[in-house]
């Protein structure tokens, strides 16, 4: 093995050891322990069908995908112009936008979610302002329902989209845009025919990473959602903590893991690709 590659692996070793110790090992243990309880494969298969094709899990999967899709779409719509501004900004403006995006990362998801609850509650800031202005007569239901989950998750996931798109947009050669303008293209044409196609791989990567993270969400839907907004991670937690049905939890974990890994395989193809040259 050449020295460079050896050095590369050595530098990765601590991270790999950590991942193995706190992630791979426990999850393997949990899955093996839960699934070896079955006396025969037939027994396992029967249980698996019960768990995976029950009404509950189908509804939860539908919730998970629906919330994931809605959040991803919102994040894209909000994130694209922000990334664009960030990719064009210089100096202080650049730093200001970047700080606004990254700073919330320095606090935990739970703290940020509680902050949203202060804003969105029945007597929260937003409702008080709207009531005070006379724009509404009764407080809006912004929390403990789908709206609250989507607002909270959109906020948490926005930075992932913005930073992914930013990388793709920064890679676009501004001289190409100028050239297009010189050849008679209007600003809209420059955007749709040159800029957008050149950043499309970033959009795909951003959408996939956002969706992958969204379908595994737990804290935000647990705190800000209502009884109809149960997502798969919450269901898994309930099977482990409340009903103590570990085999069922293990099966759901496998479903989530497989879906995530499949999406990740697609994602890495787009994320690793540089802008087309």
């Amino acid at each position, binding site marked *: 093995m050449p020295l460079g590659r050896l050095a590369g692996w050595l530098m990765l070793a601590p991270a790999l050891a950590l991942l193995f110790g706190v992630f791979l090992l426990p999850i393997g243990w949990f899955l093996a322990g839960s699934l070896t309880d079955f006396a025969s494969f037939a027994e396992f298969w029967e249980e698996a069908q019960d768990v995976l094709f029950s009404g509950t899990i189908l509804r939860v999967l539908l919730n998970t995908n629906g919330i994931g899709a809605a959040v991803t779409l919102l994040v894209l719509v909000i994130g694209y112009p922000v990334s664009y501004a960030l990719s064009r900004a210089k100096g202080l403006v650049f730093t200001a936008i970047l700080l606004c995006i990254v700073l919330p990362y320095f606090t935990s998801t739970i703290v940020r979610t509680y902050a949203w609850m202060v804003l969105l509650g029945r007597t929260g800031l937003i409702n008080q302002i709207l009531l005070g202005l006379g724009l509404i007569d009764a407080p809006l239901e912004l929390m403990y329902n789908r709206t609250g989950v989507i607002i909270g998750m959109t906020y948490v996931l926005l930075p992932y989209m913005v930073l992914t798109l930013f990388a793709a947009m920064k890679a676009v*050669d501004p*001289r*190409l845009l*100028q*050239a*297009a*303008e*010189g*050849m*008679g*293209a*209007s600003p809209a*044409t420059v955007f749709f*025919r*040159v800029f957008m*196609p*050149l950043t499309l791989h970033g959009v795909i990567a951003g959408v996939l990473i956002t969706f992958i993270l969204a379908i595994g969400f737990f804290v935000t839907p647990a705190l800000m959602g209502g009884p109809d907004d149960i997502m798969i991670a919450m269901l898994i937690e309930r099977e482990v903590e409340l009903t103590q049905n570990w085999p069922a939890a293990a099966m759901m974990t496998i479903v989530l893991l497989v879906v995530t890994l499949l999406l990740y395989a697609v994602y890495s193809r787009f994320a690793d690709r540089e*802008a*087309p*040259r």
Partner: protein
Amino acid sequence: MSGSVDLDAVTKRYGSETVVAGVSLVIPEGEFFTLLGPSGSGKTTTLSMLAGFVVPDEGRVLLGGQDMTRVPPRGRGLGMVFQNYAIFPHLNVAENVAFPLTVKGASKAEIKARVAEALAMVKLTGFETRYARQLSGGQQQRVALARAIVGHPKVVLMDEPLGALDKNLRYHMQVEIKEIQQRLGMTVIYVTHDQEEALTMSDRIAIMNHGRIAQMGPPREVYENPESSFVASFLGEANLVKVRRDGETVRGPGGAPLVAARGALSANEGLVFVRPEKVKVAAGTAELRPNHLPGQVLHASFLGNIMRYAVSAADGATFFCDVANGAGTEIHRAGDAVTLSWRAEDSRLLGS
């Protein structure tokens, strides 16, 4: 609209720095006009003002007689070749060449015919479905050229289009660009820092320095009759030797009397300009006649088709002399005593 291009005293400042200072140009339709100058001389900014990417602080830009000073690039109808080619990586050759027509909303049939014609003109027929990354530098250059001419613009701007190509390819492309320009009768405004390229291709050259036009004229005129030492030394090799006035006579190194057909000394001291290839080198010592100087060969370099001599004359002056290596040419060696001479018509006095 005709293909004439005028700049009327345009000035551009960035902060306290004046990049282009009151440049005026009158370029008739069909002319191959070159802006030549060192980097930072303002030639690219001048071109950008013609293109519309930069709005001048003062002055006007006229295309075909119409004031276009504040019209954005897309309203100017110019063809453009960019320094880095600016080929769209997500579009293939045919789509790239079609771009100026597509954004104008031309019909499919027209686009197809024009693209085929333009690609044939740059000898890229058969490359329609390739992408930039599958093309060599020379081929990318041709795509850029085809895209610039596809809409049959009256005026085409070219910003150092051959800068990235090797010498041989450059020469071929120079010939091809010139051919296409003449066939289509278009006005070309060409920016380069390569003086040889400017001399080969242009009808007229404007030599720029510090944001101003130092001199403007046909290649032979600016080469043989430079009005300043900057132009003289920027365009090829030049002997610029100190002279002083002595009554009615101009005296060079060692007090030798000099006669120049053009120029004059504004003060008591100045320079005489003569190109190396205009200086004759003869064996033996000179008799005292105007434009004849005694000297000694310092170096003799063999460059194939020419011999280049460095000859020291009196008062520490050094002359470079290029002698064609023709039939029966006498070869001098370092240390030989020689006489340098040139015709009054081939030299010029410069104020500084």
